[in-house]
């Protein structure tokens, strides 16, 4: 027993010494896994290693901010760069668990799409929550967001994300509120009432989904005639042989971001990685593997026309679009979510 102890300690000590040496020439990046990370691997990680010789150690998580917060608070930050969604960015920036970004190193913010830049984060992709239907079973499908609420024209169940965010917006958009005024209206108590009243009109016909993969599954199984969905999920289902269509009218845009967690071993290397990852050609490269829009306007020229057709950010699809206001949801989300929960139970 004692002997084992005597040999273990030096070995552990050696490992501790060796760890920084091993870490040199590599960077640890955490993202959401699945097809998304697969696309990042091919378009960003592998090309980064090829260009700089720095290896990318990948980690995956489910988007839980708690995981990053716990790491930072315990003083043991083991990842250098994390891909986060917008609410996480806002919350983490507020709570001081992300490093501030030196934008002079990244480039002119004027080149970036609305909502993709922040003090603590640099946009990775723009994705869309939009209406989708199965063209195989519904040849003459919906064309505008109002059709989601038109049960006379399109009888049957519709799938919605079990979250007030995006649904209240869709309700107001369908009720005739222009995209530019949606959050102005929602900021008044009457506006929230109005959105719930609109949702009331189809309440009995809603199937609620929670995980992103459920939306295409509901369409494929015929459980619903149409559903709101994240555009990447619909695209993937089509690659597997489905004939789903996206109604781009009044789509709601949101972004993901690269952030550097506080206490990252080498913030300089993290920033260098991010600077590379958002170069226009690299951003455009991602669209070959997954249909999420590049965050910079200057990336558009490197995207092929076939890929552009599937992107939420391509001009043809962007005619009527709303950018999700995450600050609004950070302020009012808790109250509205409670109301949403009681409304669901009524």
């Amino acid at each position, binding site marked *: 027993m004692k002997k084992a102890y005597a040999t273990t300690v030096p070995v552990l000590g050696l490992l501790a010494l060796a760890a920084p040496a091993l870490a040199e020439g590599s960077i640890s990046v955490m993202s959401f896994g699945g097809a998304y990370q697969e696309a990042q691997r091919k378009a960003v990680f592998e090309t980064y290693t090829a260009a700089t010789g720095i290896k990318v150690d990948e980690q995956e998580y489910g988007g*839980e*901010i*708690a995981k990053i*917060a716990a790491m930072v608070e315990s003083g043991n930050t083991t990842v250098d760069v994390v891909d986060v969604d917008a*609410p996480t960015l806002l*919350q983490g*920036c*507020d*709570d*001081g668990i992300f490093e501030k970004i030196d934008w002079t190193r990244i480039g002119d913010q004027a080149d970036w799409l609305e909502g993709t830049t922040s003090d603590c984060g640099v946009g990775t992709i723009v994705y869309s929550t939009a209406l989708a239907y199965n063209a195989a079973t519904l040849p003459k499908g919906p064309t505008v967001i109002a059709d989601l609420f038109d049960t006379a024209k399109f009888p049957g169940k519709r799938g919605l994300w*079990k979250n007030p965010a995006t649904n209240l917006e869709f309700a107001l958009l369908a009720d005739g509120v222009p995209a530019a005024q949606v959050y102005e209206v929602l900021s008044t108590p009457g506006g929230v009432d109005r959105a719930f009243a609109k949702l009331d009109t189809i309440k009995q016909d809603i*199937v*609620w989904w*929670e*995980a992103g993969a459920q939306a295409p599954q509901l369409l494929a*199984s*015929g*459980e619903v005639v149409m559903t709101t969905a994240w555009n990447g999920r619909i695209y993937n289902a089509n690659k597997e042989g489905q004939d789903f269509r996206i109604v781009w009218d009044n789509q709601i845009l949101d972004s993901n971001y690269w952030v550097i967690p506080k206490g990252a071993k080498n913030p300089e290397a993290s920033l260098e990685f991010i600077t590379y990852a958002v170069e226009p050609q690299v951003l455009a490269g991602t669209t070959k593997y997954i249909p999420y829009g590049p965050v910079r306007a200057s990336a558009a020229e490197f995207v092929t026309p076939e890929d552009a057709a599937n992107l939420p950010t391509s001009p043809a699809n962007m005619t009527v679009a709303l950018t999700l206001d995450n*600050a609004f949801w*950070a*302020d*009012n*989300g*808790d*109250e509205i979510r*409670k*109301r949403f*929960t*009681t*409304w*669901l*139970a009524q």
Partner: protein
Amino acid sequence: MSVTETVDIERIRTFVAVRRAARPARRAALSLALPLVGFLIVAFIAPILYLLVTAVDNPETRSILPRTLTALESWDGVSTPDEPVFAALAADLKLAKEDSTASQAGKRLNYEIPGMRSKVLAASRMAAGLEAGPYREKFLDQSEIWAAPETWSVIRRNGAGLTPYYLLTAVDLQQSPSGGIEGVAPDQAIFLPILGRTLLVAGIVTGLTLILGYPVAYVLTIAPRTIAAVMMLMVLLPLWTSLLVRTTAWVVLLQSDGVINAVLMALHLTTEKVQLIFTRFGTVTAMTHIQLPFTILPIYSVMRSIQPTQLRAARSLGAGPTSAFWRIYAPQTLPGVVAGCLMTFILSLGYYITPALVGGPQDQMVSNFISVYINRDLNWGLAAALGVVLLLVTLAIYGLFLRLVGADKIKLG
């Protein structure tokens, strides 16, 4: 000194001597258990204590707005405060902006005053740019929220290091501006109904597993050994499969174009698809299936220890089959029944992935909200408070069982 007394003293001496002689062995036994005790303290008791503390801890306002709190001591509580309070707030927010802690104070106050988060952030940005007063007009110009006495009474109330806010919220109560306790608005009251629903679903699942599991356990004890082995495997097999896999399997079975509907349609039992998934029925069915082994196994282990000869004896003494079963056999299985039901009930209280996937919007249970407040909202205070409420309810139910049947009657092995 009487003879009996001498004997008693002798007896005590012997007893003490024996105990003293056994002390090293007891110590050794105890020291062997120490790693487990240590593990329990680190992995079980400490987190529960941390949970209890988190549910009442309230550090944000105190540490970020100390000057404001001091200035508020002389505030009358009904009007908009005067210049000194605003000057103190400006000084606090200026510092908070430098340390980037303003948003933490904002987030904490936002729980009680929706919209406060961005108001505090905007005010801290403004304060950082202000060199000298008067501050009052500038704050009032920026937002009317600074004129409202309610805002200030919330700030003053949160100067305390401990808060009842999270625990009150977890049972749909709130502090009124005057300090009294009142119910929250009906459209904000979600946690008590959810707790009630959690208990109801857990109760139904427990009842169903008992009705379905009791006969199975009985058959397991009387069946020939080879058949019993196969049956046991069928009971245990689901237990070895991941919870998520079993839940997803139920999605496949229950969905509108799923196996069950297809069979019902083929048999012409129904002409329209029956809505099975996203209903309470779906939730209860899937949970019952998953929980069955937990109810069956304790009952089975108790049943095996009951001598079959007792039933035969009862019959030969004139009891009918029903009477022999209910008066001789069933009472002896009670420890297993209680243990099995308790286990299933308590485990069912903690379900969240199954109701989320096969249940409807009205089937979410408390755990679901705990996970949301931990993982997404980072509101650990409220998550901890909900955890405390769930823990207390669980302990209350456990205590009730103990009172009803007695601790010695519960056989959890």
